């Protein structure tokens, strides 16, 4: 097939051989330039079903590709490669490798929901972006995102104590995301809050920080919530065909890859 649009040829799809002889003819160097086929040779129906199984992805199958989400998108306005309409299509037809090219963009959705209000079919593209980011993490295609780490710390504290201790959430978050505790902006905030807080409240906060008391009668509720979280997580994992070990493995692989880069 002749090439009408050179822009469609990606550098990584061009291969040449420094030394190559075919049937006695020397085709070394640019004489052996090959362009990898762009042909889509199958659909993968599982991908849409997997995303649809995660919270926010439920309505992905409604999309008719009108582009209203992308047109209205806050992030698209400053980063044209951020294209929810396109990603939804890739997921629906199962073009996984194509989606993975944008894996470092998808999580950048700012959840402004402008797309949600523009979408004529109630796909809730914001939810689909969330589900897709979640899917990328669960499949081990990307390392755990900072927001996921934050959510986990938040949830852990709720389950354990029935309430959160802001300072502890922040400290653990910084620790788990390998950030220094003393950052200028943080010092500034703490200082400002400290200066404006009445002494009585300050003491109360300090007490809470040290002892982190549990909400009265929380033990049972916390256990029930924990059970529910495990159940839902298990449901999501089996929908994606990832049990703990494979996810951990691919996560590890991912980290190795990053280390190698």
């Amino acid at each position, binding site marked *: *097939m002749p090439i009408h*649009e050179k822009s*469609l040829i990606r550098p990584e799809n061009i291969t040449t051989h420094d030394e190559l002889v075919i049937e006695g003819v020397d085709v070394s160097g640019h004489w052996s330039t090959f362009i990898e086929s*762009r*042909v*889509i*040779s*199958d*659909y993968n*129906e599982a991908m849409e079903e997997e995303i649809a199984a995660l919270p926010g992805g439920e309505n992905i*199958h*409604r999309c*008719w*590709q009108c582009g209203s989400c992308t047109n209205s998108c806050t992030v698209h306005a400053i980063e044209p490669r951020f294209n929810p309409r*396109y990603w939804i*299509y*890739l997921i*629906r*037809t199962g*073009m996984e490798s*194509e989606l993975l090219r944008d894996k470092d963009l998808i999580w950048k959705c700012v959840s402004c929901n402008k797309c949600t209000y523009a979408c004529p*079919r109630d796909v809730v593209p914001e939810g689909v972006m969330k589900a897709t980011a979640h899917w990328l993490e669960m499949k081990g295609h990307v390392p755990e995102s900072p927001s996921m780490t934050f959510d986990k710390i938040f949830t852990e504290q709720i389950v354990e104590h029935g309430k959160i201790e802001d300072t502890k959430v922040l400290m653990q978050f910084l620790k788990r995301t390998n950030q220094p505790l003393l950052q200028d902006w943080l010092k500034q905030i703490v200082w400002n809050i400290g200066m404006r807080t009445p002494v009585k409240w300050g003491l109360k906060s300090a007490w809470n920080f040290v002892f982190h008391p549990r909400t009265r009668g929380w033990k049972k509720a916390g256990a029930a919530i924990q059970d529910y979280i495990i159940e839902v997580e298990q449901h999501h994992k089996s929908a994606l065909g990832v049990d703990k070990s494979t996810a951990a493995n691919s996560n590890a692989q991912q980290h190795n890859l990053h280390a190698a880069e």
Partner: protein
Amino acid sequence: MSKPILIVGGGPAGLAAAHAVASIGHRSVLVEKAEIFGGAPIQSGYAKLVPSGLWAKDAIGGMVRRVENNSQIDRKLNTVVKTFDGTPGNFVAELSDGTRVEAGSAILTTGFTHFDSVNKPEWGFGLFPDVVTTTQVEQMISSGKGVRCPSDNRKPKRVAILLCVGSRDRQIGREWCSKICCTVSANMAMEIREELPETHVYIYYMDIRTFGLYETDYYWKSQEEFKVKYIKARIAEVTSDGKQLIVKGEDTLVKRPITIPFDLVVHAIGMDPNVDNMTLSAVFGVDLHKQGFIARKDTYGVMGATSRDGVFVAGAAIGPETIDDSIAQANAAALNAIAAATGNNLQAAE
């Protein structure tokens, strides 16, 4: 006493016209070429109809029985009209069975002919047994056998429905949209998913024309409740790798070529002008539309008028039409045909 109305073609339109004429006490002669009444939905064994959801054999079968039980209607099967002469109020027709019919006026409800997919050889019909038409799938469903691959009777895991086969295609001289095939295909996709929930159904389209209220009941419903997938691509070629069918084309949304394996490929065939239209035009002295359907003289004034006074037309004979609109047109034509037969003056609105 004025003479009967001659109605040619016993499909939904002809059956509706005969009933309408009889319902105001007027006689008619219903001439049908085939050996049964009912037109395309009965002769081709359609399954559940759009938009009623009724089985064709019940819905259109009911129209046939209503006509068969009416003594005002003189019915003739396996018959065509050989000659037709005279003026409004005083026509004389000669039928192929030798009878002579005196008629006050005539209504042509001679319908359409299904597009023959052999005329698009690149899409594999006639070459591969698992390439079928919408009428064949209608029959698989209406016969109760279910949707199967004809080659080995297996349940298809993946089905492609190709829209606009024999429509909107200048290459084969068919520029019209057949109007109902988008909706029929969406309906069929839902029927397939209902029978075979594990089967994935893809519809390849250029535009989706599920007009009016069909939008949500067919297009949206097929996506939202039945997870039918729509891919914007006009297929270039259907081939086979010896095991499965291979559908080739361009996925226009990602600007990439596709070669996707399928078990069953369904052509959403269009509605051609009736192959008899040249003959009908000569016998009845009516003009044809440039696309080969029977031309209407007037859009707003006298419903169903043709270029010949006293000869009316209704249904898919005019162009691609739905059953319910064919019936509406037949009722309008019946009113005007009676007026012409009884000598009442028909005036156009222009």
